[in-house]
């Protein structure tokens, strides 16, 4: 099973990289870009076949290492 983790800065945390990307998009003529948030995607191949257990395990990974709870939120998506 594959897990895809999305990590983004919390809404309350200013995202200067996202803002810079937004300005660059506007500069390229893409109208109507209202807000950009940048994050990261981490894909993990798991031996686990039970979805519930996989979900629990990946959330533990996020809490321990993959995301910093002070500044980041995460979502876990299981594939396959």
């Amino acid at each position, binding site marked *: 099973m594959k897990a895809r983790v999305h990590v983004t*800065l919390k809404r309350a*945390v*200013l995202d*200067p*990289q996202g803002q*810079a990307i937004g300005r660059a998009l506007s500069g390229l003529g893409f109208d109507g870009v209202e807000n950009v948030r940048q994050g990261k995607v981490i894909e993990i191949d798991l031996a686990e076949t039970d979805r519930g257990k996989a979900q629990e395990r990946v959330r533990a990974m996020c809490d*321990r*290492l*993959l995301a*910093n709870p*002070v*500044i980041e939120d995460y979502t876990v998506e299981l594939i396959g």
Partner: protein
Amino acid sequence: MKTAVVLFPGSNREGDVEDALELVTGRRPQTVWHRDSDLPEADLIVVPGGFSYGDYLRAGAMAAQSPIMREVKAAADRGVPVLGICNGFQILTECGLLPGALLRNAHLKFVCRFVHLRVETSDSVFTRGYNAGDVIRVPVAHHDGNYVADVETLARLRGEGLIAFRYCAPDGDEVGDFNPNGSAGSIAGILNERRNVLGLMPHPEDAVDPRLGNTDGRRMFEGLAAALG
């Protein structure tokens, strides 16, 4: 004073802090490799600056999980002073020894220059060589120095006098324009509750030799040596 400096792959300021410590103590610190699981007996542990693990994932995130940091945490819990400089500060927040986090600089640029700091408290082994209100000039060199914490944490840091240094104007005024990275409350360095852990973004170890500009950072190491013998 016996000192230990923790070394990770990607650390690059360990030599500077070792020189600064040797200058005031007359003894070369012991270097401890990140895979080691034993810390030598030391009166002070330093987590130096650099780019441990290439800043992969988040600055300091990988180093915070290394075997030696478990030992550093245990030593800090026993009351051993721990000093984290620049990347060391990031590592100490990532491993939970200090609250908050360090984000990408608000203007997104790497900042490398001298800044002025106002000493906010002299009540710690790290800052006892200064008087509260002193203004010192030391360099910064970082990309992720934008300190953030939630409102409650910031209030607690202020209320308990745990803010050690703030960026300021040359005359000591707190002016936003002199904040090099956008950090909350112009915070440059903080103490833990027990006041035996200090993390700061600027590099006092690079302001200890008159040939390199000034010696304002030297008083931190002299204060430590005086306190720790």
